[in-house]
């Protein structure tokens, strides 16, 4: 597992700041992520660069779902508290994933024909990570909405 994907993971980790900056530029103008348009650039760059820096750990972790759960439960709580709607949070994550790949393509790391097999495997693994993340974020939002309702019901 480690051999085939290390190229993509290394690239992501080394260039975390650059990829995060490109993602932030995108998310701040994308029509599907309105809530990010007025957010301070530095803050959202930090969100992404933290993620990209931890990408390696998640990528090679034996139980990536558990690790994603630890990291993204907090992430979901923060976005929920900021009032970002779920569909925008999900789309921002989709863009986060897309920018890893865009950067890798831009750098043409999988240019040789023989490397396309590695590309498919890296891509599949990356997608799996993000599938977990999106599931965890949407589940947490659901829990938070339910919690907010029952808290209010309790008060009354």
């Amino acid at each position, binding site marked *: 597992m480690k051999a085939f994907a290390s190229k993509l993971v290394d690239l992501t980790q080394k260039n975390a700041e650059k990829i995060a900056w490109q993602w932030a530029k995108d998310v701040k103008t994308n029509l599907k992520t309105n809530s990010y348009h007025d957010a301070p650039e530095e803050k959202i760059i930090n969100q992404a660069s933290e993620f990209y820096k931890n990408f390696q750990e998640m990528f090679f972790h034996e139980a990536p779902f558990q690790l994603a759960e630890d990291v993204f439960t907090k992430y979901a709580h923060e976005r929920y508290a900021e009032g970002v709607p779920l569909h925008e949070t999900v789309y921002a994550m*989709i863009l986060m994933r897309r920018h890893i790949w865009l950067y890798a393509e831009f750098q043409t790391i*999988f240019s040789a024909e023989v490397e396309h097999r590695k590309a498919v495997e890296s891509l599949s693994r990356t*997608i799996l990570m993000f*599938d977990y993340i*999106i*599931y965890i974020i949407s589940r947490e*939002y659901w829990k938070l909405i339910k919690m907010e309702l029952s808290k209010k019901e309790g008060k009354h």
Partner: protein
Amino acid sequence: MQAYAAKLINLIESKAENIAKQWAADVMKHNRTPSYHSLSKDLVVEQGVNFYRLFRQMSLAEVPYEEAKSFSWKYAEEFYQQKIPLHEALYALILMRRHLWLYAEFQGTFVTALEKQQAVESLNRTILMFDYVSYQVTEKYQQLTMEGVNKKLGIVKTFLMGKLIGGMKNTYKLAFMAVLLIAAGILTYYNHTAGKVVVFTHLFYIPIILAAVWWGKKGMLVPILLAIILIASHSLFLKDAPFTDDVIRAVMFIIMGGVVGWLMDSVKKLEELYEPFKL
């Protein structure tokens, strides 16, 4: 569209039912999609087939984002009606994509180096489609949830007479109530001094209900005041007549004001509860 994806698209279209069956078997026992476990298999398979068949349309469309909406919105509506939580519906979509790819791999669709290159491109295209669908399903599902809340709030607002007299400023409400109370006093005085037997006290329920709607239990002051007016007037001007009827009326004012006020307080709490989820 691009020739590279044709192989995958053809495979998906011709084997839609097979892939959908595999997906259904997975989603109906997966621990992240428990709400699907009790659904009918035919229904789940049909959903898979519908999507896999739509895949060609979506892939060939000039604006795939718009094309994806026809599936996404229907999918979100169905799951919203079946009360399946959004994260489970999203995970089912993820499995839908995964099964598509698993089937292609299992069929050995992309073997040679050139085909591997095509695989990367096909995979990218597939992911793009699913990204659109995930976003649209999430957006639509939330929209449906909020519409549901707004609909419920609409009923609440009707109770609160939100758009009519409930929307008045408190000063106007107080002034209007003062006018009604003065009118009630004049009406009582006129009828009691004239010795008329008209059941005018039914009109008192207008200020009583209005006070309860506007101020909830605090509005109890109005039926108490009206009860005092009625009993005081009776003792001043109808000394010889029995008290029983007017005492019953006065008690009924207070009971009615109390019950409606208590109900309206509950309705207001319900409105506050759903306030953050309004559109």
